[in-house]
């Protein structure tokens, strides 16, 4: 049962990965891509890690550290990239 839930979490995460990454290929603005990446990619990665956590609970300190660093770093990196890229030119397309 737990195995089944963990595979559901992992496949949900993979779905989120593809969903968030496919807009990268389009011709949209940078901020649109950044938004889709930072939301769907982070959620997908967190869901994959939760799936792994269900599978092997004995590794929880490592996996919780990965979860926390994902949640913090990806949001901070999103802000920093948006801030650094917005100063030159505008990306409205």
């Amino acid at each position: 049962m737990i195995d089944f839930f963990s595979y559901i979490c992992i496949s949900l995460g993979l779905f989120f990965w593809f969903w968030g990454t496919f807009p990268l290929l389009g011709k949209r603005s940078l901020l649109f891509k950044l938004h889709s990446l930072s939301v769907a990619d982070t959620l997908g990665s967190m869901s994959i890690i939760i799936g792994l956590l269900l599978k092997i609970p004995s590794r929880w300190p490592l996996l919780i550290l990965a979860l926390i660093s994902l949640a913090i770093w990806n949001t901070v990196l999103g802000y920093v990239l948006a801030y650094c890229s917005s100063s030159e030119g505008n990306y409205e397309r």
Partner: protein
Amino acid sequence: MMLNLVLIAMILAMLIPMYEAWQDDDIWQKMLAFASFATKTSIMILVVSVFRDDWMIGVVGVIILSVGNAGLMLLAHVIKRMNEV
């Protein structure tokens, strides 16, 4: 069997930012693609480590996750400064 499927899907998802970084000339789009690539790689390392039950590989993945993005942030600031000068 299941591990192979998961890994193949992850590699496919990883090819998308790789292709984007290769064909786009805008530096910020490249940075974005590389950020996504780094996260995906470290999650893949974690998946492999958990399935192989190897604590050492997992530690490497978590270190990449927790300090690897800092390098990208510093790089973004350096690129911004270079563009200003």
